[in-house]
């Protein structure tokens, strides 16, 4: 008899051990996902933070007659391989615009070459031994320094890593998002109102519902094909423009806005509708004056989340040509533009090593914007959420 007791308790122990193992295993899976997130963000910070620092050289510029013709005469010949060529090239232009400067001298901090910058950050660089010696001497005398990289936030794209900035992409993103929101928000909210408040429950309504759920799961690149074949080739919307990008993204964001608006409308209790109907309101008056204001926080939250999603989208925009090289910052709906994710993609495909840092820096800017958008959505929801 005691034999089987031992057997059973041993069996029980085994079973409980197995049960505990499942708990640890599932906890480990969750931990793994969290660890990945930690790894990912650390990696991005390590790679991207240096992009906000850039090497500058304190240079004496002599605005002589010769410099107006050949900019290389303006600065010390030792510094020519060290200072960024974008800076050197801008000297004759400056002199043409302000001729009274000719004959004067000036000491300024100029952008250093990306090779110098990479060398100072401890990466491999293509500098020759002589140039390295010059850089070391200048660092010792305090004439080469790492400073905050304002170029990155005030300039457009450039083929030279040191003068590439993200501003044109930020402006492009803003323009594109204006178009997206201007189309997707009204249409999405109207669709949701129709489905939730007006539509009879028939085949047609069900078709629309299934269709919306399906649209939400269609690969984003197919929206790009639609944009290319219909918006660009058929309607003749200018390629690469924020207009066509915004329209394409609007169709993609539509299901997100519709679904979240429907949830928000559904959370408004029936009693409010009944009370309004009881006072003699028509259906539209009920919706406009009572249901919609109460659902607005939820609708806004959903729209912000949809906007954040659209902002990070790249694939459809590549198809409609929004990966253009945009050196000048300009706000137009119909000219070629680029957006932040597309800029990241372009920089990621540059072979130069210095662009890896720029890419990661651009990613940090994008992630910061996305995280603050999502956080504001959460705050909005927390602040206005009502339990009925």
């Amino acid at each position, binding site marked *: 008899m005691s034999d089987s007791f031992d057997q059973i308790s041993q069996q029980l122990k085994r079973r409980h051990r197995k049960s505990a193992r499942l708990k640890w295993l599932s906890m480990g899976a969750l931990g793994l996902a969290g660890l990945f997130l930690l790894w990912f963000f650390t990696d991005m910070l390590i790679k991207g933070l240096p992009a906000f620092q850039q090497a500058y050289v304190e240079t004496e510029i002599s605005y002589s007659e010769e410099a107006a013709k050949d900019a290389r005469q303006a600065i010390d010949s030792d510094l020519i391989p060290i200072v960024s060529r974008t800076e050197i090239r801008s000297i004759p232009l400056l002199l043409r615009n302000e001729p009274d400067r000719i004959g004067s001298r000036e000491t300024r901090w100029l952008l250093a070459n990306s090779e110098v910058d990479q060398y100072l950050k401890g990466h491999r660089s293509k500098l020759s031994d002589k140039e390295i010696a010059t850089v070391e001497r200048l660092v010792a005398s305090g004439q080469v320094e790492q400073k905050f990289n304002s170029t990155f936030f005030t300039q457009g794209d450039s083929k030279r890593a040191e003068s590439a900035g993200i501003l044109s992409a930020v402006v492009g993103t803003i323009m594109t998002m204006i178009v997206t929101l201007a189309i997707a928000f009204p249409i999405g909210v109207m669709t949701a109102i129709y489905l939730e408040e007006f*539509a009879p429950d028939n085949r047609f309504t069900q078709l629309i519902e299934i269709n919306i759920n399906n649209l939400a*799961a269609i690969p984003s690149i197919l929206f790009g094909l639609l944009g290319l074949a*219909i918006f660009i080739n058929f309607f003749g919307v200018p390629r690469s423009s924020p207009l066509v990008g915004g329209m394409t993204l609007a169709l993609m964001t539509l299901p997100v806005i519709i679904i979240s608006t429907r949830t928000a409308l559904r959370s408004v209790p029936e009693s409010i509708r009944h009370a309004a109907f009881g006072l003699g309101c028509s259906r539209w008056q009920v919706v406009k004056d009572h249901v919609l204001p109460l659902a607005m926080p939820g609708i806004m939250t959903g729209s912000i989340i949809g906007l954040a999603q659209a902002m990070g989208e790249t694939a459809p925009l590549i198809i409609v040509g929004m990966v253009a090289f945009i050196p000048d910052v300009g706000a137009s709906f119909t000219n070629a533009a680029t957006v932040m994710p597309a800029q990241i993609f372009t920089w990621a495909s540059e072979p130069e090593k210095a662009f890896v840092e720029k890419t990661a820096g651009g*990613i940090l800017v994008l992630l910061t914007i996305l995280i603050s958008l999502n956080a504001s959505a959460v705050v909005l929801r927390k602040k206005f959420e009502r339990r009925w």
Partner: protein
Amino acid sequence: MMQTNQLLLIFCSVLLILGLIAFFVGRSKAARLRASGSSMYAQPDQYAWFAVLSTAGPAVLVGTLGAFVLLLLGAEIHPLYLLSASLVVAAAGLAVGVVQVRADFHARKAIERVIRWVLAGAALISIFTTFGILISIIFESLRFFEMHSFWEFITGTTWNPGASFLAAAGRGDGSGAQFGSVPLFAGTFMITLIAMLVAVPIGLASAVYMSEYAPSKLRTIAKPVLEVLAGIPTVVYGFFAAITVAPIIVNIAGFFGLDASYNNAVAPGVVMGIMIIPFISSLSDDVINAVPDSMRQGSLALGMTKGETIRDVVVPAALPGVISASLLGMSRALGETMIVVMAAGMRPNLTANPLEDMTTVTVRIVAALTGDQEFESAETLSAFALGLVLFAVTLSLNLVSVIMIRRFREKYRVNNL
């Protein structure tokens, strides 16, 4: 073009003025009628809004429909005529709107009807979007299949569009171009398989932990943190896979004496899998929570341990939901573009070795549409044929997923899934 813009501006301002006239004339007429003592169905403002609607509505409708028809027929009619026609309609609408201001006219009901139609029209846009996608990919693929046989596309094992580029440029006859999509689909399924091998176990286990074990405090933190994984833009994941993960995979493979390409399929697969985890965990979590507690109680009452209950009762009951979530995740992985564009290879490669470089359907779509090519070339059109297959596959996965989740919902009478 500039002239059209100016015309449009003039049109809009005239329409605005007409609308304002309609509003004020309608309102004053209604107010006068009411002041004269007749009892009316609606408020003066409602009559005024009806007049505005009857002025602007038909005019805008005529304008847009007309422009669309002109574009469709390719007719060369100056936009001036179209816009003036629509202004005439607006004037007529204004007259009708003002005449309709009568005591026995139900202005509020009329507005209601118009609004209902406008809202239904907005709802139709989503249908149009699906049709738009379908039409664009079907028409262009048909043109592609006129050039290359469908059978070759489905069964061919060589994807070599290079020569078709020459043919489109007027050099060569394009006979060298081969569009056999098997290697592309093999690559796509390989990367998707790797992604699912990562995402399904981790996603399901996380869901089990969150719904069955985790204290509610941890749950409220863990759920949004997992959602962050889904919110990171795919271009960022692509960069991460190419720059950070791929070299690690190469090093690990090298440690075992294996030769791995820097564009191997494992790196994008693993990163894609991590991206999909929240899709699977979030839906699975909801489904596991929806499994009725009576089943857990029954199992525990029979002497099962908690682990056995979860493994043998809860998860099997939730299985349709879990499968449905996995299918959704799979359709997401098949259509994912940026991660593979940045981290996977460009070379169509029919192989079972995930350490080699291989390309996917979406990579070839992007490659075909970003080069400087004539739109008519077979390579450009092949992107649409690939898109068509992608659409068909993801659509069927989504539909099966919807059906599975509906079955689950009906079985356990859950409403909020």
